[in-house]
């Protein structure tokens, strides 16, 4: 992967016009995206949320969308378009700063048709000045510092460097040096053993541009050794590719100097998501490999050093855990003014997600007791940008609170009195957000009535109701709120419940399993139901509700 000298010479002779700038931006974006995880893993400041790389990519992506169809050869116009796109898509702290850098850059060259060394230097200086104006107390050791060092170094180089490509080379070098110095300026970076993430992101953008000039690949991530404490193996999991089923982590002490180039080269033949960390002469290698190659990295590393620790994990199993931990991130339907928005009370995270996928605009978490206050319900819809609201209480004890919420708001609110989750779900299927409120409510009411709902739970006391004797601790089944069966376990509870339903009148049974019931157990019971009711479609969904092992919808 050497530098293509003829190509570089061509670039040096060619002035940078609008189209060349466009290709440079594309290269910067591609290279940043390739190294996105590295940038994310460095993110400890201002808030350690590991999203700097993603935010910068999204911001620059928005800039690229703005220019990708532009045919202008005028570099000033092109830069203005980049600046506009970056501003519109600015995400997060680093994204806002990146958009300000582009704004300044564009201002520095707004009246130029082409970039030469002098205008490029001026653009870097303007980028720095504009970026610094956006904050009262600039924190040094961040992307701002990197932008400043780039401006300083290119200004100093102007005497001896005559072409814009030469200036870009100086900029990349200066950015690299500045990034390495960030831990000295910002103590929190030093404590975490990382360099600044935003600064590193800016470096990748500039480096991507120069790699484009050199004709180097922009697709395979840069070979780096990070500090071991900064290795972010959790993030790597999100990039698991088809067939890469095993994660292998090897700690080792190399014999002599580790030749990174050949080390990476060998590993790239084996798998993906390669990360290498170092601390006190000890190295840690992380890689995702296909099942049949899971021992290869270990064998290879044993040949070049002393292996101290090996960990092999099945990624598919880990992915399940990650999916579960992501349960809090639910994206709700956005409502437009004038549309009908539905808010619903949900007893569990899984059900909240299902409601969200059906188009609710907000969920009130019922909590352990399924007893949200009027205020909770009110708060869920007060900030929605529409005046037409439908509330689905999904529990007969909440209908009252929902009605009270209707009394105290100025919005036009209707309550569809769903007494349980299956009714609420059925009602959601009848929603037309653009319709007339009264007509929609009527349709949703009808839909809610059409569904049968079952609940499986454990009796909290011994009692006899409707001729069914129940002992404390026994599994009980309720059909539309009425006790219909007591059983020795959950499986029999479900089967006894279904016996009470005229199943020939229905088509689909959906089992929402609660937080106390393992996924595998829910599937096993569903299989038993399928065996007995072969004409029905049986689905299993994670409900996540407390207390109820199953909430069952029979449609």
């Amino acid at each position, binding site marked *: 992967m050497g530098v293509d000298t003829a190509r570089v010479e061509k670039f040096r002779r060619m002035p940078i016009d609008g189209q060349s700038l466009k290709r440079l931006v594309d290269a910067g974006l591609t290279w940043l995206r390739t190294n996105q995880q590295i940038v994310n893993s460095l993110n400890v400041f201002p808030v*350690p949320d590991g999203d700097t790389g993603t935010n910068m990519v999204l911001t620059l992506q928005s800039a690229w969308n703005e220019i990708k169809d532009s045919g202008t050869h005028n570099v000033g116009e092109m830069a203005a378009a980049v600046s506009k796109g970056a501003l*519109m898509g600015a995400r997060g702290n680093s994204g806002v700063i990146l958009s300000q850098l582009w704004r300044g850059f564009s201002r520095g060259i707004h009246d130029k048709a082409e970039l030469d060394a002098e205008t490029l230097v001026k653009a870097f200086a303007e980028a720095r000045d504009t970026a610094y104006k956006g904050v009262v107390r600039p924190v040094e050791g961040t992307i701002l510092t990197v932008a400043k060092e780039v401006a300083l170094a290119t200004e100093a180089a102007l005497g001896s460097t005559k072409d814009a490509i030469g200036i870009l080379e100086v900029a990349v070098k200066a950015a690299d040096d500045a990034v390495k110095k960030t831990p000295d300026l910002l103590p929190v970076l030093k404590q975490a053993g990382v360099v600044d993430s935003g600064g590193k992101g800016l470096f990748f953008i500039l480096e991507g541009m120069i790699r484009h000039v050199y004709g180097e690949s922009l697709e395979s991530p840069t070979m780096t050794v990070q500090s071991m404490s900064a290795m972010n193996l959790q993030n790597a999991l999100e990039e698991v590719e088809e067939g890469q089923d095993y994660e292998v982590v090897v700690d080792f002490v190399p014999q002599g100097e580790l030749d990174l180039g050949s080390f990476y080269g060998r590993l790239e033949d084996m798998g993906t998501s390669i990360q290498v960390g170092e601390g006190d002469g000890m190295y840690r290698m992380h890689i995702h490999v296909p099942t049949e190659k899971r021992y290869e990295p270990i064998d290879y590393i044993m040949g070049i050093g002393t292996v101290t620790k090996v960990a092999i994990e099945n990624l598919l199993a880990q992915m399940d855990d990650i999916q579960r931990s992501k349960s809090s991130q639910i994206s709700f339907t956005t409502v437009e003014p004038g549309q009908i928005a539905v808010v619903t009370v949900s007893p569990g995270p899984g059900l909240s997600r299902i409601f969200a996928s059906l188009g609710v605009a907000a969920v009130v978490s019922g909590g352990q007791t399924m007893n949200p206050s009027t205020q909770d319900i009110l708060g869920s819809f007060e900030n929605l940008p529409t005046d037409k609201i439908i509330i689905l209480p999904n529990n007969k004890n909440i209908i009252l609170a929902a009605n009270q919420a209707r009394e105290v708001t100025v919005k036009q609110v209707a309550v569809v009195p769903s007494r349980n989750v299956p009714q609420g779900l059925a009602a959601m299927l009848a929603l037309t957000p653009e319709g007339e409120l009264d007509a929609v409510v009527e349709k949703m009411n009808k839909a809610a009535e059409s569904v049968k709902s079952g609940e499986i739970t454990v009796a909290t006391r011994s009692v006899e109701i409707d001729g069914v004797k129940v002992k404390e601790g026994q599994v009980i089944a309720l059909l539309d709120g009425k006790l219909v069966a007591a059983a020795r376990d959950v499986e029999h509870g479900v089967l006894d419940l279904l016996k009470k339903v005229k199943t020939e009148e229905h088509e689909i049974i959906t089992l929402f399993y609660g937080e106390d019931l393992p996924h595998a157990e829910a599937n096993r019971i569903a299989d038993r139901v399928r065996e007995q009711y072969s004409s029905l479609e049986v689905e299993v969904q994670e409900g996540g509700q407390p207390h109820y092992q199953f909430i069952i919808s029979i449609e």
Partner: protein
Amino acid sequence: MGEETTSLGGIHISPNAVATITYHATLQSYGVVGLAPKNLADGIVSTITRVPSHGVSVHYNGSDIDISIHVIIEYGTRINSVAESVANTVRFHVEKALGLRVNSVNVHVAGLRISDPD
């Protein structure tokens, strides 16, 4: 607010302390050029305030903290993203420093400062 009783005695954190942490975290946020007084009476002195409690209000209901901040933002930045970063940064710093849960951070954009019209 923030009462806590230890074997040695009580710890009491005043809303002013929260306001001060909020003030500094906000001013470090990119895109914010100042805090604005939250009401007119405070505002007669100057438009950009240097007293933390003037630009920040803190409510404590016994378990959660609600914070409102009135900020002036640099013209030309994406206001949405800046406000979101402010909210994140403030929440992080207050929770880290006090160990109390922050329920909500409301960012009111009271004005813009235009250093470079374009």
